[in-house]
Structures are given as C-alpha cells and as structure tokens.
C-alpha cells in the first residue's frame, strides 16, 4: 500500500516536470520563432522564398550579396561611431552635471535640478520640428554632427548619476577637502570609481538608445555614407523587399547577430546590475 502511494507521487512529480518543460519550451519557441525564421530564410535562395517555400539549397549567397552589393557594413560602422560618441558624451557631461548637483554649493541648485528633471518628461518626438529647423540653420543636415550634437547630454543620465553620487559617504568628501583635493580630483578619483555600476548601466542605456534611433536620422541624413543602421535597413527594405527577400533577411540578420552576442555574453553582468538597482 505504502509503496504504491510513493509510486504515484513519483509519477505525479514526473508529469509535473514534463508539463513545466512543455510550458517553457512553447513560450521559448514563440519568442524565438521570428529569429529562427529570419535566420533560416536568410540562407535560402530568394526564388524559393518568393514561392512560399521554407526549403531549398542553403547557401551564403544572400550574405555575400548583402556585404558586396549593399552598404550594410557602412551602416553598421556609422551606427557604431555615432553610438560610441553619444555614449561617452553622456557619461562625461551627465556625470559632471550630476557632480555639481551633489557636491557643489551654488545658488538655485534645487531649482536647476527640477528644471533638468522636467526635461526628462518632454518627449523628443514632440520637439522634432524646431530641432529640425535649428540644425538646418546650423548647416548640419546630412552630417555626422547632426546625429551627435543634439544628444551630447542626457537628463536621465544626470538624474541617475545624481542618485549614485548621493550614495557616496559625506565623510569621504570631508576627508578629501582636508587633504586638499580639488573638485576635479575628487570627481575622478572617488566619485567616478565609486559609481562604476551606475556608469556602466548608463553606458549600456545610452549606447542602445542611440543605436535604436530612427526618426531623427531619417529626417536629417540623406546619403548612404552617413546613414546609421536602422535607417539603412529601412532604405534596403523599401528598395528590395518586393524582389529580394533573401537579401533583406540576411541584412537584418547581420544587424541583429552582433547585438544578440553582446546580450548573451553580457547577460550575467547585466542581470546583476539591474537587480542591484531594483532591489532597494
């Protein structure tokens, strides 16, 4: 009697386990289906795709075409340059501004901080018309600078780093004052190293934000030489879709694969960083 009961419990546990894996697998499949289909078809000849077939001779043909006949590498390079500049600019300008709000004493400090906070609420999409006129008046259209200069600082970055700098014990600042460290020295030797995690999080946030920009580059750049990758894919898509699905899928794959690798590779760090921010 007792033996069969134990047996039933084991069976029940096994069924539960199988069910768990079933649910996990179905959900995972739904999530990665668009990736799998995109990658799969990027290896198929366009004639096969156009017929609605998912089988055919697999080859690197589409990739070869994408690399040689489209400016996809140039698009990637442009995006990399623009995103890196924006990222480092955010880290620098936002961190010195945040430093001022935490460690410096000056008139209207709180008021100015609320002003910065207010800019966080205003959507860039609603300001695009005057901004377009401004950069046109500055003769920046169709130039790298047009995708960098308006985004050199980040209100969100200032807000976030101000929170981080506030965690630095005030004793450290007093000790530094006694030792005669200037603000610049304290900023570089204490404030920045102390807030490493926040700086890295802001770096990731800024880089991704810049990489994903779509509307602004579309309005302000007109040549393949300068186009960042989102806008470049839009261009390729509008030129090739009806005729060359294979090429479009391969281009999309070329764009997404590096980000996926970075994401999986940085996964462990990223998770711990985010949790650290959200636990408290």
């Amino acid at each position: 009697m007792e033996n069969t009961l134990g047996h039933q419990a084991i069976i029940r546990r096994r069924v539960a386990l199988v069910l768990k894996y079933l649910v996990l697998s179905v959900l995972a499949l739904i999530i990665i289906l668009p990736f799998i289909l995109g990658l799969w078809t990027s290896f198929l000849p366009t004639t096969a795709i156009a017929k609605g077939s998912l089988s055919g001779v697999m080859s690197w043909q589409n990739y070869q075409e994408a690399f040689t006949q489209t400016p996809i590498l140039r698009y990637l390079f442009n995006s990399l340059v623009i995103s890196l500049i924006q990222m480092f600019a955010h880290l620098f300008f936002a961190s010195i501004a945040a430093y001022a709000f935490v460690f410096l004493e000056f008139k209207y400090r709180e008021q100015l901080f609320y002003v910065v906070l207010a800019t966080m609420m205003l959507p860039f999409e609603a300001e695009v018309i005057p901004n377009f006129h401004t950069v046109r008046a500055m003769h920046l259209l169709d130039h790298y600078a047009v995708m960098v200069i308006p985004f050199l600082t980040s209100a969100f970055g200032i807000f976030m780093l101000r929170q981080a700098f506030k965690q630095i014990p005030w004793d450290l600042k007093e000790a530094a004052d006694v030792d005669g460290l200037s603000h610049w020295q304290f900023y570089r030797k204490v404030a920045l190293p102390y807030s490493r995690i926040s700086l890295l999080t802001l770096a990731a946030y800024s880089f991704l934000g810049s990489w994903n920009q779509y509307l602004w580059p579309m309005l302000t750049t007109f040549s393949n030489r300068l186009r960042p990758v989102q806008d470049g894919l839009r261009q390729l898509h509008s030129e090739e879709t009806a005729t060359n699905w294979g090429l479009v899928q391969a281009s999309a794959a070329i764009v997404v694969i590096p980000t996926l690798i970075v994401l999986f590779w940085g996964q462990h760090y990223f998770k711990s960083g985010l949790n650290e921010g959200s636990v408290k």
Partner: protein
Amino acid sequence: MINSFPSIKRRPKPGLSPESNDQTQTQPVSFELKRNDKYYAWLFLGPSLLLLSIFVFYPMLRTFYLSLFLTNSFGEPTVFVGLQNYIHLLRTKSYLASLQATGLYVVGVTVFTLIGGLLLAAVANQKVRGIEFFRTIFTSTMGVSVSVSAIFWLFMFNPSIGVLNKVALWLHLPAINWLTEPHWAMVAVIMTSVWMHLGFTFLIFFGALQSVPKTLYDAADVAGTNRRYQFVHITLPMISPTLFFVAVITLISAFKSFGLIDLMTAGGPTNATNLLVYRIYQDAFVDGNYALASTESIVLAVIITAITVVQFKLLAKRVNY
C-alpha cells in the same frame, strides 16, 4: 524604485568625526571651497544646461508658439490664430480617429506586455535543470532593434508566403490579410510591439520576483495556502511598484511608437494605424503643415507629461508598501 534609495546623512553632527572638532583648521578650507564652488558649478553644469536649453526647452516653447499661428512652407509663423489650431484639430474626424487608434494601440501593447512579461517571469522563476537557457531566450528580444523586428515580423505576416497564414491554412482557418485589413493591421503592430517589449519587461519582472523574500512563502506554506492564493496575496503586492513602473514605461514607449508604424503599415490601411507621432511626421515633413503638426506635438507632450507626473506622484505614495 529609483527614488527609494536610502537618504544618506549629508553632514555629520559636530563632534562625531574627529576632524570636525578642530574648528580653526576647517574654517578656512570651507571658505575657500565656497568661492571655488561657483566657478566649478558653471564649468560642470554649463555644457548640459546649454544643450538642454537649445535642444529641449527652446524647441518646446517654439512648438507651442508655432501652434498659435499659421505657418508657411518654411515653418515660419505668418498669421496669429490663437487657439484656433487646437479647436480645428479636435474637430477633425481623422485626428480623433488617430487619437482613438493610439489609445487602442497603447492600451493593447501595455496590457499584453505586462501579462506576457509576468507569465514569462513566473515560469522562469522555477528551479529546474537548464532554466538558465530559457531565461536567456526570454530576454533575447531586448537585443532587437525596431527595423529588425519590423522586417522579421513583416515576413511572418506576409499574406502569401508568411508563416502565420501557413499555420492558418494547416488548421483549416481562413487566411488573414494582415496589414491590409484595418483591424488586423492594428493587431499585427500590437503583436510586434509586445514582442519587442517582452525581453526587457521579463528581465525587470524576473528581478522583482527574485527579490521577494522566501520566508514569506515559507510562512504561507505553513499556513496551508495554495499557490494561487500566494500569488495574489504575496507576489502581486510585493512586486506592485515594479508592475506600475513597467506599465508606465511601456505606456510612454508605446505612445512614442514611430519606426514600427513607418516600416510595417505607413499609417495605413485607411489610417487605421496612423498613430500620433506618425501623424506629426506626415503633417510636418510630408505635407509641410508645421502649425498643425506643432499643435499635435503639444497634445502629445501634454499626454506624456501627464502620465509621467501621475507616475511620480503615485510612486512616491506606493513605493512604501
């Protein structure tokens, strides 16, 4: 979440630290610092304030200013009309339809993203072998940009060669004209947008679930409650600040959707997916009606600012559960 950092006592009381006992020595230092501070403040804040003034404050004021005028094709104001643009806008049927479509889209995206993210997080929060692999897959859409998502999904939605209709065929269901039938086009962009948002949402929810103290569940087990009871009475209240935070972020992000619409439907069919930002773009940069587009921009800014203010207010209240 962000503003709940423990506040740190900025100035220790005199006598607590040995250095501050020596009044005569610290006095001159702090005097010198004060004079220094002003100079440093200008240096440190200057660049950011200048940039924010030129590219955030000025354009916001200018947009409002333009919304009170008629404009020429260069976007310069010509005739002052007061609030006429706003009145005109709210009487335009197609704009009201746009507002309605945006509302539908935004609510759809937010609700399904929250449900989906919570489901993924709950499922990934189990202890089974190989769970890390599934967690990695669940976060994967975080690495996908707007254009790539749109291209991958466009392929799946393709009426003749897309997978979705093939599955429909296989199940003996009628084929759907995704993207060319108004209702289905809305469904299609919502699906794509939810998929894009899921990775990030999952990651945040998963972190929140992991931070719920295990002792609470242990106590509930002892009390003999079942899983569903525990989910409703322990998990949900504990993660409610995170839920709320993600809801607002998703809501705002959905309001700003542009790339997806541009690539997938271009606002069509028959304006069914002509969301607010896409409309601004069309009115300003395709039709050259800058006054109208400015008015629409102000409406958008008001909506998003209102959501953010409500978020700050509620967050301040609710975070201390």
